[in-house]
């Protein structure tokens, strides 16, 4: 009996506040927008019993999903979100790998400090770290002032409100997620493997390609997914740093909901976004499970 209560408390909490809300989203995505409170129809009327239930289901349809495919704003936003997330992930890998590598090969007594320095930004506010780039990249911002004052450029660069600013923002805020898994893979690596390769005549570069990279593959995969998955649905970074031309689906969902008050369409956008993310999430989960099995 006690075991049952132990299981039931967190179970019911998650059912009520995670699964049920999600089912409501699915249901509303099949409804129609209406000028009412709440602004969608049909409403489920249980007082009419079975007939009410039947009438309710007969009015649900896939109209919103059909609309998502006809209006090019939506599929362009999905594609653009995936593209921005992919480019940012690759940039984060190229920037994060040397940092992780440098940390893993640093003197032992330095490593805890370096690790703390990577984790520290994670504890500081995400919103503030994104905002900092607004101060730096603005037309009259720090970067342009420095570049103009030193005579490198004569006209201020337009970086804020472009996709470039969004790339910088995503790479900056998610970089620790790339560095940490790669670092933990590289830290476990046995140095004698590299020495053996060099003794056998490999150059340092080919030893790096043939030994270090394959051995850190697990960390690279984990880091890429940890950056890619949250980037796709990102709202704050494109909203603060991107321009009006920066299409990202998290932003479209927000606007449909708060500005256009089209709850059914916002729900449909959410359902499709999740369907797109399920594939990378499953691949990630499987590669994590496999890594765990290898570890045991």
């Amino acid at each position, binding site marked *: 009996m*006690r075991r049952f209560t*132990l*299981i039931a*408390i*967190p*179970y019911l*909490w*998650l059912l009520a*506040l*995670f*699964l049920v809300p*999600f089912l*409501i*989203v699915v249901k509303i995505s099949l409804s129609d927008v209406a000028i009412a409170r*709440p602004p969608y129809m049909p409403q489920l009327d249980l007082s009419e019993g079975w007939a009410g239930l039947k009438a309710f289901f007969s009015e649900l349809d896939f109209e919103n999903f059909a609309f998502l495919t006809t209006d090019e704003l939506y599929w362009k936003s999905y594609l653009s979100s995936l593209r921005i997330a992919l480019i940012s992930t690759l940039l984060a890998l190229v*920037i994060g790998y*040397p*940092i992780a*590598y*440098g*940390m893993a*090969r*640093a*003197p*032992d007594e330095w490593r805890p400090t370096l690790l703390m*320095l*990577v984790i520290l*930004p994670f*504890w*500081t*506010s*995400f*919103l*503030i*770290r994104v*905002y*900092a*780039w*607004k*101060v*730096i990249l*603005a037309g*009259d*911002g720090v970067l342009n*002032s420095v570049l103009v004052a030193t005579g490198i450029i004569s006209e201020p660069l337009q970086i804020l409100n472009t996709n470039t600013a969004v790339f910088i923002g995503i790479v*900056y805020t998610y*970089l*620790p997620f790339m*560095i940490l898994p790669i670092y933990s893979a590289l830290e476990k690596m046995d140095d004698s493997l590299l020495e053996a390769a060099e003794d056998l005549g490999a150059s340092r570069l080919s030893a790096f390609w043939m030994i270090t990279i394959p051995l850190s593959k697990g960390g690279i995969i984990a880091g890429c997914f940890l950056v890619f998955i*949250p980037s796709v*649905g990102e709202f*704050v970074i494109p909203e603060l740093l991107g321009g009006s031309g920066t299409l990202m689906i*998290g932003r479209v*969902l927000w606007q449909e*909901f708060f500005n256009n008050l089209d*709850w059914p369409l916002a*729900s449909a956008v*959410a359902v499709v*976004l999740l369907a797109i993310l399920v594939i990378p999430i499953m691949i*990630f989960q499987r590669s994590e499970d496999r890594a765990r099995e290898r570890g045991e």
Partner: protein
Amino acid sequence: MRRFSWFNATALSLGFAFLYLPMIVLIVYSFNESRLVTVWAGFSTKWYGELLRNQEYLDAAWVTLKVALMSSTIATVLGTLAAYVLVRAGRFSGRTLFSGMIYAPLVMPEVITGLSLLLLFIGIGLDRGVLTIVLAHTTFAMCYVSVVVSSRLATFDRSLEEAALDLGATPFDSFRLVTLPIIAPAVISGWLLAFTLSLDDLVIASFTTGPSATTLPIKIFSAVRLGVSPEINALSTIMIGLVTIGVISASLATKRAAVARARDEQAAART
């Protein structure tokens, strides 16, 4: 003895410059007399004064702190319970769904979590405000807590619990006297994680709040949406300062605890 090669030293210096320069810029400009970023008009702390006189920011800070304290505490209890169920309860029907519901919120885009909770709250007619933000934050934070705690529970020597039970302890006593002290560091870091996630959250709070409760991130977001604000620079500096002090003192405390433990163990070995 390993030393820094020139390549590693360059990679690390450039990398950490990238991670820290933006924050340093914010701190420096929070002391700028001028409202414009371009012009350095001399050192001044006037933006801190304006910030502390602004009742709206103070109210928002208080709401945020209240929400974070409540949600992280409930999330720690529920998350520890969930971790215990995941690692210790063995097989029960619906276990797959349960572990799915623990892991899914970690990868769920925030806009979807926020939207779905708002639709629930409206559906059941719950007034939106502090309570609904607490419910929302508790739900996603408990999943983070349970991941942190379950990884500690999984590496824990179970025979200690069994010994306590054999010696006549009730299951609750064995949990309270044996399990809890051992997993305590994980529970504390889970609480800290939940607290930080709640302090930091903009998207889910924006969906689930009502006109009565404005959190600090919502306030900051509306202030910086259109441009740079010197008050926010001052606020950022205060927040960065608090986090830095917190993280450094936590790491010093763990280091001191480790040293003390090593000394105790040596003393025990000598006797």
